[in-house]
């Protein structure tokens, strides 16, 4: 089971509003591997992540999460997702801890939230340096801090595959370094990580492989380098 590839996209085509956005993308992320997905605006980075989790229909090609297509995939507890520009705030106040606790839903399901769930949430908030803000309303945090809460939410599930769509957009440099250390520890314990990034920055030493997208296709390695 451990040897199944966490994420594999084979010749994936995705259309949005009738326009092709991905045109035959191949992408795999293996166990313990950190892959950076790079490219300009509109190159299809976020579309690739959304197709990977089954949020967008695939026109052609194949997506597999741990060997299973997203539509039939049930082991969502193995996947941690940080959506792009995630809406961490709502119309009603919620604490940092409440938002991060949503990351445990795939584990406890309809059963009550238990001690081990609470421990995992605390550990995840600690990893992003926000444990001391756990009881604060999320509205009281800066944009970068809110983004770190959505990262903690993904980490709280102790996933085997982490998909992060521009997790650093508003995070300051010191925290980017801290996050790089957290992700390195995750990868060391076998987590597969797909990072959508604008710029590599402090993640440099962490990344095993980079894939640069241009209008829905990877740029050949020698050009990207």
């Amino acid at each position: 089971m451990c040897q199944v590839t966490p994420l594999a996209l084979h010749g994936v085509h995705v259309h949005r509003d009738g326009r092709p956005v991905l045109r035959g993308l191949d992408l795999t992320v293996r166990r313990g591997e950190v892959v950076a997905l790079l490219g300009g605006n509109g190159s299809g980075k976020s579309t690739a992540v959304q197709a990977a989790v089954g949020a967008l229909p695939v026109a052609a090609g194949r997506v597999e999460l741990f060997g299973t297509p997203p539509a039939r995939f049930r082991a969502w507890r193995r996947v941690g997702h940080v959506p792009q520009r995630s809406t961490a705030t709502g119309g009603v106040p919620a604490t940092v801890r409440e938002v991060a606790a949503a990351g445990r839903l795939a584990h406890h399901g309809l059963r009550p939230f238990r001690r081990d769930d609470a421990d995992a949430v605390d550990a995840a908030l600690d990893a992003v340096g926000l444990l001391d803000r756990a009881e604060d309303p999320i509205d009281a945090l800066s944009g970068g801090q809110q983004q770190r809460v959505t990262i903690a939410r993904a980490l709280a599930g102790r996933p085997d595959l982490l998909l992060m769509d521009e997790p650093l957009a508003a995070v300051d440099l010191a925290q980017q370094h801290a996050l790089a250390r957290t992700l390195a520890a995750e990868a060391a314990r076998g987590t597969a990580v797909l990072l959508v990034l604008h710029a590599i920055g402090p993640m440099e030493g962490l990344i095993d492989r980079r894939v640069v997208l241009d209008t829905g296709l990877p740029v050949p390695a020698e050009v990207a380098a």
Partner: protein
Amino acid sequence: MSGVSGLLDHTFMRHALLAALLVGIAAPAVGTYLVQRRQAVMGDGIGHVALTGVALGFLLQTSPVWTAVAVSALGAVGMELIRSRRRAGGDLALALLLYGGMAGGALLISLAPGASTASLTGYLWGSILTVSPADLVAMAVLTVLVAAICIGLRRQLFAVCQDEAFASVTGLPVRALNLLLAVTAAVTVTVSMRVVGLLLVSALMVIPVAAAQRVGRSFAVVQLLAVVVGVLSCVGGTVGSYQLDLPSGPTIVVASMVLLAILAVLAAARPALARSRTGTMARGAVLRPRANRQEPQESR
């Protein structure tokens, strides 16, 4: 206080207070999720559609409560389907429900034998004193159902209303939960219509939540406080309407707004009180940066 205890000597008043209690629990419990999703006026759209359901009940000469449940649930599901398909369409869908529901209600009631738009007045503004034992049983059953959903699925509904993209990747049945919430809201509207009326029902789903937000910092606390405010407004408003000979629905809504004002003043006074007590600036309480609200945008 002898006047208040004397209230309970009247059977109709015991029924009315029990009905008020049920509505005070159900409406804010559901409303918290709607406000969370920034759909504060969805209850109003459902209320207008329920009017068509009430008129249909008169036309078919059956209980208007059950036709209202059926029609408003259909309307709420339709609105949810439009919302989930087209991000920008929610606004228009709401407008369609509002006007379609009103027009449908007025049309159907004109066709109903022996009924006229005057027959709808009790449903538009509420007529809590005419609540029958049979109505009460239906209201109690539906309120238990609504409360069970709102409390039992709190973490799931919170996650869906907070961030749908994330919720779907935790394996939650997002579509099903959204539809469940829509139907639950529709049921709540019909439970509440005899007490506050269809035109004001949405107020009870929203104002207690707004009041609770003044003092609550977490979602769980806000939801609980909203129910407390809802119960106080409904029971207090019912007593007040009897004593002052005022219509129950508007009195209940005004009572909830008074509670909102009191909590808003208390919340505003809190930093000032802390300042006068410590003699310092109590800056943390005053200068908490508020929101970095980024509108969710369609991403590539």
